[in-house]
């Protein structure tokens, strides 16, 4: 079941996964990470600084991409290097907000990946794409993962 170094080639795709993010998830992430910036839990204050409302922590979105790679590798400890650029915010509406287009609150983060390179020493470079509401929310996202 575990993916092996010998089994992957540059261009090998990692099937896309979708992760839901709700206000409760952001509250849990705030507590677990210690990042209590008001823009991640208070609509009024988020709007006051020009945001569309509460947005996900950038590090929450990055963590979803990290989870995507570690689930594929079968080991969170296999992710040696991991870097991203945050290219767009991820608004996370409350489920009591008026539903535009039937939205019942929360956001969906879709993550996919491609093997970019085999680096030797059982390490592979994985290029990652993360989208939410049709926008790329991470760019230049790459992980170096050690495979068995």
């Amino acid at each position: 079941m575990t993916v092996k170094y010998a089994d992957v080639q540059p261009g090998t795709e990692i099937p896309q996964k979708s992760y839901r993010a709700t206000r409760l998830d952001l509250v849990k992430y705030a507590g677990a990470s210690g990042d209590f910036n008001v823009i991640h839990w208070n609509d009024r204050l988020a709007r006051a600084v020009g945001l569309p409302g509460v947005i996900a922590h950038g590090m929450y979105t990055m963590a979803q991409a990290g989870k995507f790679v570690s689930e594929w590798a079968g080991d969170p400890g296999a992710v040696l290097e991991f870097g991203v650029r945050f290219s767009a915010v991820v608004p996370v509406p409350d489920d009591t907000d008026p539903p535009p287009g039937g939205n019942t609150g929360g956001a969906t983060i879709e993550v996919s990946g491609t093997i970019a390179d085999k680096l030797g020493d059982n390490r592979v470079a994985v290029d990652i794409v993360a989208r939410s509401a049709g926008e790329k929310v991470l760019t230049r996202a790459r992980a170096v993962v050690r495979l068995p």
Partner: protein
Amino acid sequence: MALNKEFVGRAFGPGEPYEVSRVKIAEFADAIGEPSELCRDKAAAQRAGYPDVIAPPTFAIVVAMASTASMHSEPGLGLDYSMVVHGEESFSHSRPLHAGDVVVATTTVESIRAVGAMSMLVTSTDIRTTDGEHVCTAKSTLVERGK
């Protein structure tokens, strides 16, 4: 307000040692929805060759943030945290953090530059055990939006 470029090259820390616990790792894994038993089950982690449960790769931000927070609040830096968004983040691990690690972090200001009305602050946080073993370097770009 422009950031104070005299901060470039300055190092902050190491602060108080941070002890990585099983409970905190499990809490963080739950919060991000990481399902791996290697973050929760010591026996499973040991079968995989680790001394104890391991942290997800972005857990290092918990340790790094505690270190960078002391720098961000330096009045001389001139950072308005309410206008800050996260621009980039990267982690380079020598090994995963695991329960039982006692680590210290040192944050160095790598660069400060103005891009139009925005300021970009790049820091590098070195995380190592109190015995001096390197575990992770976290590099962070914060963007202070102009008013």
